[in-house]
């Protein structure tokens, strides 16, 4: 049991560090980028549109030397696989169609849903780890919580996929790059789906083990 508690503590610490790195730091970076874009908009009297985390695939196999290595001054090739694009246009010159407004609203709602779902899963996950540390493993409430996390990951995966699909659709409507294609190929968030299914599978094993424990408790 000591080993189990140590592993729980390590998992909790790693998880919190990962959340800080992936979510908090990303939020801070996003905030800085948003602030920069907003300042640029105000200074130049422009409006902007953002398309984040787009997967890019090169149109040709030809390598272009499009960057410089500051250390030795040699040219190098920068090949982006994921990029955020920001378009600018003069104020009141770009009238959005009803379809575009609708997609923007759906995209915003999905973003909000992803955020709420993520934090709910986070809270439930911390509750589970804390109950594990109190040696409450084979309990109905633990099984329910793990089930919520598994389903949460599947929902997160589904919402992320739809959101990414809408972003790519909107980006392709507004932008066409000379050397890269904005790709639909990686819109499905397999990591979340696989994680959700693995958690649900492990939970079923825990459910069976809890059943055995209940029976064991009734052997005198």
């Amino acid at each position: 049991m000591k080993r189990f508690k140590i592993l729980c503590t390590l998992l909790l610490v790693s998880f919190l560090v990962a959340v800080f790195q992936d979510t908090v730091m990303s939020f801070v970076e996003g905030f800085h980028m948003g602030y920069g874009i907003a300042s640029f908009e105000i200074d130049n009297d422009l409006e902007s549109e953002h398309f984040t985390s787009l997967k890019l695939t090169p149109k040709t196999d030809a390598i272009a030397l499009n960057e410089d290595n500051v250390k030795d001054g040699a040219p190098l090739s920068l090949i982006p696989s994921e990029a955020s694009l920001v378009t600018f246009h003069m104020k009141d010159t770009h009238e959005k169609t009803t379809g575009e407004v609708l997609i923007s609203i759906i995209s915003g709602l999905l973003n909000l849903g992803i955020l709420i779902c993520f934090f709910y899963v986070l809270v439930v996950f911390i509750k589970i780890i804390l109950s594990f540390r109190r040696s409450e493993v084979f309990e109905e409430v633990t099984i329910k919580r793990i089930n919520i996390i598994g389903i949460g990951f599947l929902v997160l995966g589904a919402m992320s996929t739809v959101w990414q699909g809408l972003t790519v659709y909107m980006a392709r409507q507004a932008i066409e790059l000379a050397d890269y294609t904005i790709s639909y190929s990686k819109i499905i968030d397999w990591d979340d789906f696989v994680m959700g299914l693995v958690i649900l599978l492990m939970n079923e094993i825990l459910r069976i083990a809890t059943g055995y424990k209940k029976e064991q408790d009734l052997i005198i």
Partner: protein
Amino acid sequence: MSIIVNLDVMMAKRKMSLNELSEKVDVTPANLSILKTGKAKAIRFSTLEAICEVLECQPGDILEFEK
């Protein structure tokens, strides 16, 4: 369940309380209560042996099969 536990009958015959029996067979009163009320799924040979020894009876005096 077709196996009936007659532990309460044997305890009454020997005029022994649940707490007294639990102390003598080294099983918690809660577990003996589960056994007495027929909620138990199984009984270990070691527990059965200890109960039989304390109550001076046979396993058949405690467990009964009913169709």
